[in-house]
């Protein structure tokens, strides 16, 4: 545990310190272009407010995801990762999210099995008309991960972020 956990000193440790209050988690959200990314756009046009620590990567379909993208995000210091796609049955490409559901269900359980808190990796179906759900998911994800604290387990000890 020494290599990965030893670096937790860099980021605020658990406990109710003022520093922790200030700390915001970094969340990477992989969103499919046709539903979830569009849902994000709708949250924007509707001027909904959600935490700025969520950053979206656009993909054509949620099935463009590769578990290695998720692992990479954690390794580079993300505190949470979200994959969002069309609701089952609504995939723009007819079936991509059905495969995603199987793949990422198994992957999520494997992550949990390795000792990662399952809250850190979530999958959500957000349609293009669900701007409120988009904002809501980002909000609740941020709060859940804030409660967990920084992801110290997975960070590459050599990786330095900039403020």
């Amino acid at each position: 545990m020494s290599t990965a956990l030893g670096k937790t000193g860099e980021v605020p440790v658990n406990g109710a310190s003022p520093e922790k209050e200030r700390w915001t988690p970094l969340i990477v959200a992989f969103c499919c272009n046709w539903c979830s990314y569009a849902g994000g756009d709708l949250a924007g046009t509707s001027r909904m407010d959600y935490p700025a620590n969520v950053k979206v990567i656009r993909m054509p379909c949620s099935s463009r995801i590769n578990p290695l993208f998720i692992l990479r995000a954690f390794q580079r210091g993300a505190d949470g990762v979200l994959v969002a796609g069309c609701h089952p049955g609504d995939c723009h490409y007819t079936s991509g999210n059905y495969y995603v559901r199987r793949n990422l269900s198994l992957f999520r359980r494997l992550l949990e099995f390795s000792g990662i808190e399952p809250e850190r990796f979530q999958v959500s179906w957000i349609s293009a008309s669900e701007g409120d759900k988009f904002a809501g998911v980002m909000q609740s994800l941020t709060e859940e991960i804030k409660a967990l604290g920084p992801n110290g387990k997975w960070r590459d000890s050599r990786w330095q972020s900039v403020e």
Partner: protein
Amino acid sequence: MAERRINNMEKIRTAVAQDLLSGRIDLLLGWEKGLYWWQSRPLFARNSEDLQRLTWDSFCVANLSGYLQEELKENKKIGILLKGCDSRALNRLVQDQMVDRERVVAYGLPCPGLLDPRLLKQEAGLELTALGIEEGEDRVTLTGTKGKSIAREELLLEKCRRCHHPDPVGCDQLLLPPVGSREDRSRFHQVTRLEEIPAEERFAYWSSQFERCLRCYACREACPCCSCRECFVEQEEPRWLGKAHENSENFIYHLTRAFHSAGRCVECGECQRVCPVELPLMELSSKIIKDINELYGEYQAGLDTEQDPPLLTYQPDDPAAFVE
């Protein structure tokens, strides 16, 4: 018992010799004795002389199906001896079009389970070199220990103790009578145990394991489902993963390798057997198998080649392991 084994051996040898000498196969993949009595290693037999060394005993653990891809490049037709788990590996390779089934003659060896030298040593309290064994039907006598006798079941390799399908499937011929399926074994008790401990402890457990990983990739080399031409860890473009001894990278390597075996792993245990630092790698793939069974229905890779692998199909009302 010993006599029966010799009879078995002759039966096997005669069957494969016929095919090898008649030219039906160019090469036979089997086992021969290694340096010590508790080791049997792969044999690449091309003639009757080679065949004399052929052996089938309680230590023929290596899954030979992993050699097929490479050997088929140079041989037209290959015969291969397969235990239950090995046969499923072959079937899975065929299903993935890695092996042309037409060019393989599969001889099935119903498998009573193999012995774990580590357990023998532990039970005897002696170095293996000072030890010998005599195998009976259900018991094993340790010679050199005043004749201590132990139930065979107790001495089996971990993977054999959780094996459900000791009889080979989809072989061209079975060389020995079937031993019957064993459904009552718990395959997942270790996984369940790990699932139940708190996340922090689990992370500590895996950290302490992966920390020891040498990244020698022996697990990958031995795995019959690792059939990529270029593994992701070796790719430069894109560079999925660094090569440093860094715990996060070791985590990523092992989780990804296990995930890449999802729907493919036949539980032959080769990954774990060949690991020089004895990482409990089977638990990762067992975890995935357990989840597949729970979420998407029982699936045993390589058992029924007509069944779609679980990640290549879906049901519109599949359950999800996340809040949708």
